[in-house]
Structure formats: C-alpha cells, structure tokens
C-alpha cells in the first residue's frame, strides 16, 4: 500500500521476473546480448539514484526481490510473468522453480504465471495441463519472439496456438499476457504487429488478453484493437519509466490510453527487475497531465487507484481491503465501454 496526501493506494505490480542472466547460465552470445539490452533500458530510463551495477542486475534472488517489491516498493501483490528463453539461457531466463516456490511461500503476495510455446505441439499441450495443476495457473505469459530451434517466433493465431488457448479455457487459465518481440517468421511482416491479438481476442472472448508495454512500439494499433475488443487490456511495462525521462511523452501515452481504452483496462507494472516499483509508484501518484496538453482530461485519483492495483486485483481475484476499494462507480467518462460487462457489474450481488 502507498499513502500520499491522505489517499491510500492498493498496489499490484502486474509484471515482475526473477531472472538469472549470470554468465554461467548464458548458453551463448545471445544470452549476453539479451541482458545487455535490458540493462541499457534500465540505465537509460532510470533516475540516476536507482541505477544498479551490472553485476547486481544479472541476478537478484528471492530475498532481494521481496525487499525491492514489497518492503521498499509499496506493492501489496505482484505477478510473475516469466520469459522462457531456453535458446539463450541454460535454465531459462525466468527461474520457474525459484519463482514458483517463492510464490508458494507467500501466496498472499505473489502469483506465479507460467508460459507455453505452441511449437511444442502435443507434448507441450500435455505439459501445459501438468503445469496448470502444479502451479495452480490463473495466467500465462507468452513471448511471441521466442526462438525455438530454426524458428524465431510464432503468432497468436497460428492453428496450434488455438489448441493451447482452448486448453487454457478448459483449465481455467483466463489471463493471457502477451509480449511482442522483434524476431518473427516471416520477416516480411511487421514483427511487432498486434493484429493477431485482434483475432484471438475475438475468438476467445472469455479470456483476457493483456498486451504488455501497451503494444509499444505499435501503441496506435494496440489502442485501435483495444477499442474494439473489450477483453483486450494494456500492461504498462516499459511505458512506465518514461514518467521520469520523458514526462510529456508519458502524458501523451496515458492520454491516448485513457481516451481509447479507458481506465479499467490499464495495469501498472514495474517490469522488475528492469526497474523497481518504488520510484514508479511515487512518481505516478504525483503525476498529472500538463495543463497545456488540453486535449487530454486531467487524470483523477480514482483512475490512478484503478491503474496502480484495483484493475489487476479484479482480474486475478486478489482481495482488496475495504478501505482501499473505490466506491461502486458508474461507467467511466473515458474510453469505449463494454456495455454488457458494465451492466453485469451494476447488478445487485
């Protein structure tokens, strides 16, 4: 929980990782290139006081994570979104065992999402069933630019991916987090294209599709899809730290998101350990759309509360203390509404 000026905010960090990018776990040069790229993100967009040394950045471990996210970082709950990356790292990038055990130890604080790769065919489907049971999965994190033998990416509307989404439906895995990456076959097409999200969201209306980094670098395409598909949400991973380096650009991102998709479908995340939640939460609570950007309405405290935690808490059934909830509100003033869902929300319990 974070408190400022008498307002209390319930914080859910909806995208965190427990990674191991140390040299001994790197399988090849790409393992080094990958973490170096993350470290450049970290160095480029963090306030100077928050920049870690390279060695610190390679691996944090559970104890450090708990301190950064919960003791220092104000979070009430956080959700692991592990990237597999076995082509780059011997035990993978996101540490499934370590993270899931940590989540099992702190079930009130941590949720463990796992991943799958539809290119694993039948065997992968079987594995997904096992993983769902083992981890009690509510969600998965999918990285479409994952390398896999000769293949360097897949699409959400591939036929095999549909088999996996059907399995998710059966298994009660409702929340599909999607990370678009740059290397995908064929290279003829825009690898960051989010059109495949549109297809699956239309065909699996009972699943939630959370597009991480709000579709960046294709923000506009993401916004357009999300206006049309009420089950498409935006995760603020990677977009958040612009609040420090480029606050006016961050204001435009928020203005666009609130306008196109509305305040109920945006989720805060630090993308730990790329960044840490403490300074992001502090800055976001203090943030306001600059007055001269009069084409955007000011962002309200209630909107901030939803984005910082209440939206993700609702999606993941995370209990929120009564004092941190918002009074039942009507349809919001911004963004297109899912009228059916709103009507259902307004039914007496």
């Amino acid at each position, binding site marked *: 929980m974070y408190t400022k000026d008498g307002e209390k905010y319930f914080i859910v960090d909806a995208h965190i990782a427990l990674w191991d990018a140390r040299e001994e776990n790197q399988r090849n040069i790409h393992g080094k290139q990958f973490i170096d790229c993350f470290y450049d993100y970290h160095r480029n967009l963090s306030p100077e006081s928050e920049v870690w040394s390279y060695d610190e950045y390679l691996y944090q471990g559970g104890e450090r994570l708990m301190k950064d996210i919960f003791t220092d970082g104000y979070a009430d709950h956080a959700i692991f979104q592990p990237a597999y990356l076995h082509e780059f790292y011997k035990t993978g990038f996101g540490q499934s065992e370590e993270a899931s055990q940590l989540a099992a130890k702190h079930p009130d604080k941590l949720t463990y999402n796992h991943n799958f790769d539809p290119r694993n065919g039948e065997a992968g489907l079987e594995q997904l069933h096992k993983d769902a049971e083992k981890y009690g999965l509510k969600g998965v994190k999918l990285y479409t630019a994952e390398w896999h033998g000769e293949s360097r990416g897949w699409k959400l509307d591939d036929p095999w991916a549909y088999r996996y989404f059907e399995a998710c439906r059966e298994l009660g895995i409702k929340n599909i987090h999607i990370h678009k990456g740059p290397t995908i076959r064929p290279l003829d097409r825009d690898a960051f294209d989010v059109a495949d999200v549109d297809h699956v969201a239309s065909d699996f209306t009972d699943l939630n599709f959370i597009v991480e980094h709000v579709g960046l670098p294709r923000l506009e395409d993401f916004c357009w899809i999300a206006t049309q598909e009420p089950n498409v949400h935006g995760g603020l991973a990677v977009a958040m730290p612009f609040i420090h380096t480029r606050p006016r650009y961050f204001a435009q991102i928020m203005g666009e998101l609130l306008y196109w998709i509305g305040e109920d479908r945006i989720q805060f995340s630090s993308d730990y350990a790329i960044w840490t939640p403490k300074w992001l939460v502090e800055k976001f609570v203090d943030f306001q759309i600059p007055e001269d950007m*009069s084409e955007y309405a000011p962002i309200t405290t209630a909107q901030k509360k939803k984005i910082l935690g209440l939206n993700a808490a609702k999606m993941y059934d995370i209990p929120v203390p009564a004092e941190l909830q918002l009074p039942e509100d009507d349809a919001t003033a911004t963004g297109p509404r899912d009228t059916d869902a709103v009507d259902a929300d307004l039914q007496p319990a």
Partner: protein
Amino acid sequence: MTSTLMPASTGELTRDEVMTALDVVLDPELDEPITDLGFVQSVTFRDDDVLEVHLRLPTSFCSPSFAYLMVSDAKDVLTALPGYDAPGRVVVELDDHHDSERINAGLAADAGYRGTFGHEAEDSLDDLRAIFRRKAHTAAMERCLTALLRADDELAEADLGTVTLADLPSGDHATDALLRRREALGLPDAADAPVMVDATGRTYATEEVPMALRRARSTRISIDGNAHFCRGLLATRYPGSDADQAPREPETFFPLTTLKEQLR
C-alpha cells in the same frame, strides 16, 4: 562523427559526400535519416580503394527486417556513387546485432533479402516498407494539421477536411516533410489537393474528420515515442553517440480543448 576512423578522403570522394549520400537512407519505422539518428558508426576509405561503412543500432535485438532494410539501402546509395559501382568497392556492415553475421554475409554476397534470410524470408520486404510509408504520411499530415489548429483559433477540427496544400505554410519543415511523404505514396502535389487524405488519396466526410485526426495523432505519438526510445538507447549503448544525433524537430503540442467534446 566521433567514431570516424579516417577523416581524409581518397581524393575522389569526401566523407561529407558519403554522409550526404546516406542522408536519404531512412529508418523506416522512425521515418528519420540514419545519419540524423547516429546510426552511422564509421566511414573509412581503405588503402585498397574500398569504401567501408559500419552501421550500429540501439539494441542487439532491433528488428532484423528493419536492420536489413537500412543496411541494404545504405549499400545501394553508396554503390550508386560515381566510381563505386564496381563489385567489391563498397563494404557495408552492421555491428553488434544478433543477426550481424548473417546480414553482413548476405550484403557482401549481394544475396538480396531472400538469399540473406533463407527460410525466414517469404517474398520481399516491400509490403513492410509500404506499411511504414503510410504511417509516415499519416504522422506528417497530423503534424501539419495540428500546427494549423494551433495557429488559428477560428479553425475547428471538422474544417480540416477542406484544407488544401495551398493552405499550408510554404517552405515550412513540416510542410516539406508532408510533401515528401505524399510523393513517396504517389499522392498529388497540386495546390488545391486536399491535405487530409488516407494513403490512397481518399478524403474524409466532415463527420469522419475528428476521429481520423485522433487516429492520426496516435500514430504520430507512437512514432515520436519510438524515436525518443531508440535515440536514448543508442546513446546509452554507445557513449558519445548522442553527439552524432541531429536534434529532432520540437515536439508539437496543441491546445485542442474542443476535440473531446466533438468526439463524444
């Protein structure tokens, strides 16, 4: 250019001429010259009369298709320089990318896109390039129209559908940029041609105009944001490279209080 190894020329061609030639190579996604972005790592006139140019990108994992477009375009403009059309006289290499080896081998062999990427390439990158040409036009159009709105309180968004090229300030950077984008798409440059058109030249009905402007704005914001991100990452990755980056045009902001009301 801090990283140029040999600033001298062979006597035939100067480094400045090489950079000027490279000015026409755009990052298709950011719609900016690679020279302004600081992507030119070095220009070297080798003793064996070979012109060697190295490019660098903000991350190892920048999209290989965009990377390929930039390096192959660079090689095309350099081999078009007088005296450099003979095989082997121009070497272009991409540094520090996850696909550097493959791309550089393909370039050296003039293997083309499909020859370079094998099974990962299907047909060509023409469609990909076309998508970003259209986006570049959309963003350039929004910049011009938003500038008009800012300059004239009397002008309403819905009126923008009737604005013609003659209404834009001539010689203005934004106007020139729009004209170039229009030319790339084959759109007319006549004074009475409407400004607010899609990539095929279709105009918008008055009631469609505010939403079309809103969508165009989100495209422009997306491109601007990516440009900030990529420039910043390059400067972090290669300390000092920010000195090679030309400043971007000042950001355009727009007191458009009426816009939201009109769209409700």
